[in-house]
């Protein structure tokens, strides 16, 4: 869980950096896309390395979900009879919503791929014209809203995930790690949300 989570987190960071290229204009954004597709093309052909990365990513997602399902099953088996009255004392909202949050994120990722990778759900939908696709998307309020919900779910997921992963990997100073995790989650959210809101409010056209 922790290891696959860390790998996915690295992807999330890299993806965010890519997103921010929107602010540098269409050339930068679309160029970034071309570069991504062409890394290592001398060796593996166009999109070769990208596919390796994609497969790696899918493997990590599968591992992460498998581990999550196993944990959830163990939890259910460990408490066959549930409490009639139950009141969480401390468990942060983030910690309690890891499982549902994960499901929301997965559903969003499917939509997101159909929207911006495959393009079939995108209002512009031209392969390679990333900048246009993105700006076309976020002029629509419902797309922005869906994106925002997903990013916030991701933020919560990361907030508990980072701290939990570090704890699982043996870092044992809860307070410091928890604060750092919160800071990082906020950073990710801001980074991701800056794009749709910039488009929505017309700062990026």
């Amino acid at each position, binding site marked *: 869980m922790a290891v696959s989570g860390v790998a996915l987190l690295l992807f999330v960071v890299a993806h965010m950096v890519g997103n921010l290229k929107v602010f540098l204009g269409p050339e930068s954004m679309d160029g970034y896309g071309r570069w991504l597709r062409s890394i290592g093309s001398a060796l593996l052909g166009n999109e070769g390395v990208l596919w390796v990365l994609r497969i790696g990513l899918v493997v990590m997602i599968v591992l992460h979900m498998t581990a999550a399902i196993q944990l959830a099953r163990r939890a259910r088996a460990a408490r066959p009879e549930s409490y009639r009255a139950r009141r969480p004392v401390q468990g942060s909202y983030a910690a309690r919503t890891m499982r549902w949050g994960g499901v929301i994120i997965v559903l969003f990722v499917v939509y997101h791929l159909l929207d911006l990778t495959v393009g079939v759900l995108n209002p512009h939908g031209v392969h390679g014209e990333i900048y246009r696709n993105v700006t076309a998307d976020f002029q629509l309020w419902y797309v922005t809203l869906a994106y925002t919900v997903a990013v916030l779910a991701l933020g919560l997921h990361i907030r508990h995930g980072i701290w939990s992963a570090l704890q699982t990997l043996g870092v*044992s100073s809860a307070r410091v790690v928890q604060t750092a995790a919160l800071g990082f989650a906020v950073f990710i959210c801001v980074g991701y949300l800056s794009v749709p809101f910039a488009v929505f409010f017309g700062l990026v056209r």
Partner: protein
Amino acid sequence: MRLTLRIWRQSTKDDGRLVDYRLDDVSEDMSFLEVLDVLNEELILAGDEPVAFDHDCREGICGMCGMMINGVAHGPERATTACQLHMRHFADGATITVEPWRAKPFPVVRDLVVDRSALDRIIEAGGYISAPTGSAPDAHAVAVPKPDADTAFESAACIGCGACVAACPNGSGMLFTAAKITHLGVLPQGQPERDSRVLDMVRAHDDLGFGGCTNTGECTAVCPKGVPLDSIGRLNRDLLRASLRPRR
């Protein structure tokens, strides 16, 4: 004070249910268990079965008592066992729901009494230092840095009540296990068995049917002795270290 106690009654495997009991004359100086005493006296004289609940020292140290009070392990007061919880923390006229610890490794024996021997099994798997009687060197042979001794103490304070398991949404006993790993693992005396201890105790924990830890922190919040969540980090570190090293 007037109270309604909504108590889990169970005498066979499948007949568990919540039953309401009215008490009209509760003093706010009573402990929660004393309220159950008073209720039981009334039930006995009325020809009913008294409510079975575990308790012994009634000063918050033996770890025998434990119940979910309004959905919180040991009730609303922090760092307080059920026996030390006093009624002044409840409102007059309140309805209080009381349930047993619920976890697969803690089967209900009767009413609020559960079988927590799974916790003993975890300790038996390795929660000790092998120091046969008579084999000890002088107590001052090895100095222990005070911060280490204090860290060990913080975790050693665990009373084995099982509240961590009861409160954990995953039904995990990781805080209990980690408390012993930390207590013994930070002391120089505990080093020789450090690797085998963590591997064996965690395996026993998993085999007994406790859930996995997802670091939600519910456990430490209800722990009557405030065993810190950091101890789980230490356990994980030891587990990782021990797993990566060839077992001797």
